[in-house]
């Protein structure tokens, strides 16, 4: 059988890949994609703990569903913001969006 720690290891690796994407990518759409990867990693953790803990209690799965809901809302609003910014500034590179600095 597969030990719980293997799932946690995969989730940790996926989260760190997502974190790297958020920190290192220039394009705002790519940063949003990396955020989605990190959220998926959290969901793996929640479901793994649900399965190896007490499966008769739906806490882990319920929380995973809520994470999924918030991720969907975040993607919709985030991409709407990116498209709106692209219309005004003709760029989605995060470094060039510095209007709040002045």
């Amino acid at each position: 059988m597969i030990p719980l720690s293997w799932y946690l290891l995969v989730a940790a690796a996926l989260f760190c890949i997502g974190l790297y994407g958020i920190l290192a990518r220039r394009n705002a759409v790519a940063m949003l994609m990396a955020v989605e990867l990190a959220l998926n990693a959290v969901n793996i953790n929640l479901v793994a703990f649900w399965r190896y803990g007490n499966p008769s209690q739906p806490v882990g799965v319920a929380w995973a569903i809520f994470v999924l809901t918030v991720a969907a809302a975040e993607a919709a609003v985030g991409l709407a913001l990116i498209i709106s910014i692209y219309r005004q500034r003709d760029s989605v590179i995060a470094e060039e969006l510095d209007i709040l600095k002045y």
Partner: protein
Amino acid sequence: MQVIFILISAITLVSGIMVVTNRNLFHAALYMMLSFLGVAGLYVLLENGFLAATQLLVYIGAISILVIFAIMMTRRLMQTTESPFNSQWVWGGAASLLLFGLILVILLQVFTLDPNSTAAILPPAAEEAIRDSVNTLGVSFVDAEQYVLPFELASVLLLIALVGSIIIARPDVEDDQA
């Protein structure tokens, strides 16, 4: 079982790395779909078919398509020849590697990676709970003792996100009226 797990995890992680390193944003989005599919496979291995189906519908069916639409609308930036990374990519990589190392150290102190240990054995009496898990989940969402409040809040959040993103992404209407 372990072979399947390693295969699915490898697909998930390799396509995850491709998502954050690929120059072509469109290819990155396709690799993201593959990574989501791998996560759905992990849910199946964890015997939660409902969440795997939800993952397919919401992440691959909705969020990935939304991301691809956004990439197509900002198409000029797709064929960029300059580096996809900003000037801090070394520090970003170091920070995420450090975080992974820290998690690994803590993980190895609490859990064991040995697949033959007792930690690999699932709790007994799980079979029935797994079979009823979708039912239990549905009941918990409408049970006043459990998650009815977050459930309703989630629906309000979705409505707010729907209205908000339409208002944000809509072009200015003043020009048409003038």
